[in-house]
C-alpha cells in the first residue's frame, strides 16, 4: 500500500498536463484583458506586460455594448429556465409517481429530443420563427431553449423526485391531506433543492448557447453575450483583443464559479437517473 501522500503526488503528476491545458486559456484571458492595447502585438510574443490596465474593462463595456448584451442574455436565460421548469416539474412528477399508458413512449420521446441538436434543425427552426414572426425577438430563444432543455430538466428532476420517498405523500394522505395539499405541503418543500440545482444548470445552458442566438437574432441590439463577443472577432480586420478578452472574463467567470460549486450535484443527478 502506497501512502496517501505518495499517491497524491503521483496523481497530480499525471493530471498536471491536463490541468495546465485547461487553465491555459484562463491565463490567456486574464493576461490579455488587463494589458495595454499597444502591447497586444509585440514580437516575439510574450506573457509579460508593463502595467495592469483595468480601464480596459470600462472601455470594453461601452465600446462593445456589453451591458445590452448582458441584459439580453439574462432575460433569455431566466425566462427560458422559468418556462422549462414550469413545464418540467409536473411532467417529472408524473414520470416519478404515476404509471400511465404511453409512459414508455414518452420516455423514448424525451431521449430523442435530448439527442436532437439545434444545429440540425436550425434551418427549420428559423423558418418556424419566421412564420411566427419571432425572428429578432428574444422570445424565440426563450421558447427554443426551454424546449431543448426540457428533456434534461425532466430527467434531472425525475431522478431527484424518485429519491423523495413515496410513503411521505402516502402518510400525508392518511393524515387526511388531498393530493394537492400533500403536493404543496410535503412534496414541494422537499423538492426545492432539486429544483434550484436544475434551474441553475438550465440557466447555464441557455447562457452559453450560440448557434440559435446567432441565427435568430439578426440585429446587434438583440445579441446575447456569446454572439456579441463573437461579433467582435468575426469578419473584422482589426480585432480589439484586449476588449474581447475582458468581455469573456466578465461573461464566463461568474458562471464558472457557480458551476464549480454545483458540479457535484450534476454528477449525482447523472448517476441517479440520466445514465443509469
Amino acid at each position, binding site marked *: 500500500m502506497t501512502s*496517501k501522500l505518495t499517491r497524491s503526488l503521483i496523481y497530480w503528476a499525471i493530471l498536471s498536463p*491536463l490541468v495546465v491545458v485547461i487553465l491555459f486559456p484562463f491565463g490567456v484571458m486574464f493576461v490579455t484583458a488587463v494589458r495595454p492595447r499597444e502591447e497586444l502585438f509585440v514580437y516575439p510574443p510574450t506573457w509579460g506586460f508593463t502595467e495592469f490596465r483595468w480601464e480596459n474593462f470600462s472601455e470594453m463595456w461601452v465600446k462593445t455594448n456589453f451591458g445590452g448584451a448582458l441584459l439580453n442574455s439574462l432575460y433569455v436565460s431566466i425566462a427560458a429556465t422559468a418556462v422549462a421548469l414550469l413545464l418540467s416539474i409536473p411532467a417529472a412528477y408524473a414520470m416519478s409517481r404515476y404509471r400511465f399508458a404511453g409512459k414508455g413512449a414518452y420516455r423514448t420521446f424525451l431521449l430523442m429530443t435530448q439527442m436532437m441538436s439545434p444545429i440540425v434543425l436550425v434551418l427549420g427552426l428559423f423558418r418556424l420563427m419566421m412564420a411566427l414572426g419571432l425572428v429578432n425577438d428574444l422570445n424565440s430563444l426563450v421558447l*427554443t431553449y426551454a424546449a431543448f432543455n426540457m428533456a434534461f430538466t425532466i430527467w434531472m428532476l425525475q431522478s431527484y423526485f424518485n429519491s423523495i420517498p413515496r410513503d411521505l405523500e402516502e402518510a400525508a394522505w392518511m393524515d387526511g391531506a388531498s393530493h394537492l395539499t400533500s403536493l404543496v405541503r410535503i412534496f414541494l418543500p422537499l423538492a426545492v433543492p432539486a429544483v434550484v440545482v436544475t434551474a441553475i444548470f438550465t440557466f447555464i445552458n441557455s447562457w452559453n448557447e450560440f448557434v440559435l442566438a446567432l441565427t435568430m437574432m439578426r440585429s446587434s441590439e438583440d445579441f446575447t453575450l456569446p454572439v456579441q463577443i463573437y461579433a467582435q472577432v468575426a469578419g473584422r480586420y482589426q480585432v480589439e483583443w484586449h476588449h474581447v478578452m475582458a468581455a469573456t472574463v466578465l461573461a464566463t467567470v461568474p458562471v464558472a464559479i457557480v458551476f464549480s460549486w454545483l458540479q457535484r450535484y450534476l454528477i449525482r443527478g447523472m448517476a441517479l437517473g440520466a445514465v443509469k
Partner: protein
Amino acid sequence: MANRIQKAVPLMMILPGLLLAITIIGYPIIDLAWTSMQDVSRFGKLTGFNGGANYAEVFADPLFWGSLWRTGIWTVAVVGGTLVISMPVAMILNDDFYGRGLARVIIMLPWAISLTMTAVVWRWALNGRAGLLNATLMNAGIIDQPIEWLATANTAFVVEILVGILVSIPFTTTILLGGLSSMPQDAYEAAVVDGASGWDQFRHITLPLMKPFINIAIVLNVIYVFNSLPIIWVMTEGGPANGTDILVTYLYKLAFRFGQLGKAAAISLVMFLVLLAFTMLYVALVSRNDRDDAAPEEEVDA
C-alpha cells in the same frame, strides 16, 4: 368515472411540455423534410416540388463529401481522444487523494464555459503573430519561429480536434465517475483476497462493469461532437478554403451565407437520419440498462 379522471391526471401533467417539444422540435423536422424536396428562393420562398434534385445536388457536391469525410475524422478523433484521456482521469478522481476536490473543479471547468468563449480565447491564443501559445512554446525553446496555427487547414483542424477533446473531457469524466462510484467495493476486496493485481482488477472487474457507462459515453459524445458547430465556426469558419469544414459548418454556410436553402435542408435531413440512427442506439442502450436495473415495483412486502 373517478378512475378515468385519475388516469387523465398524469397525461395532463406531461401534456404542456409535450406540446412545446412537438412544436419546437417536431415541426421543424417535418418542415425540413418538405423543404428539402422543393425549389427554394434565396429568401426562403418555396417555388415548387423538384423531387430529389436537392439531394442529387448534394451528393454531386465534392464539398459535401469533403465535409462528410472530415466530420468522420473529427468525430472519431474527438470521441476516441476524449475517452482515452477521461478513463484514467475518472479513475484518479474516484480515488481518494489530497486535493481531489480542487482537481475535480479544475477538470470540470471547461464544461462551465460556453464553447463560443473557449473558441474565441483559443483563436486569440493561437494567433500567429502574438498568440500566447507561440509565446509559451518559444520561451520553452520548443519552437524558434511563431507558427501560424490557423492559417493552414491541416494544423487548424488538428488544433480544433484537440480543443474539441478538451471541452468533451468534463462531461465524459462525469459519466464515467457516475459508473465508478457505483462499483461494488466488495468485488475489489474479494479480488484482492483472490490475489488480483491492480491491472487484473482493472481488466476483470472495472472494465466489464464499466462497459455500459463507456458505451453511453461513446454514443452521447458521438452525437454531441457530430453536431458541434461553435469550435470550428469561431476558430476558422470552416476555412481556410473549406479545409476545416464539417457537415454542420457547411450546412450553416449554405443556409445562412449562400442562401441555398433547398440544399441545406437536404443536408439537414441527411444529418437528421444519421443522428436518428445514433439516437436509436442510445435509446436501446439506456433501456437495456434500465431493464437490468429494474427492481420489481409492485410487492411492497419486505
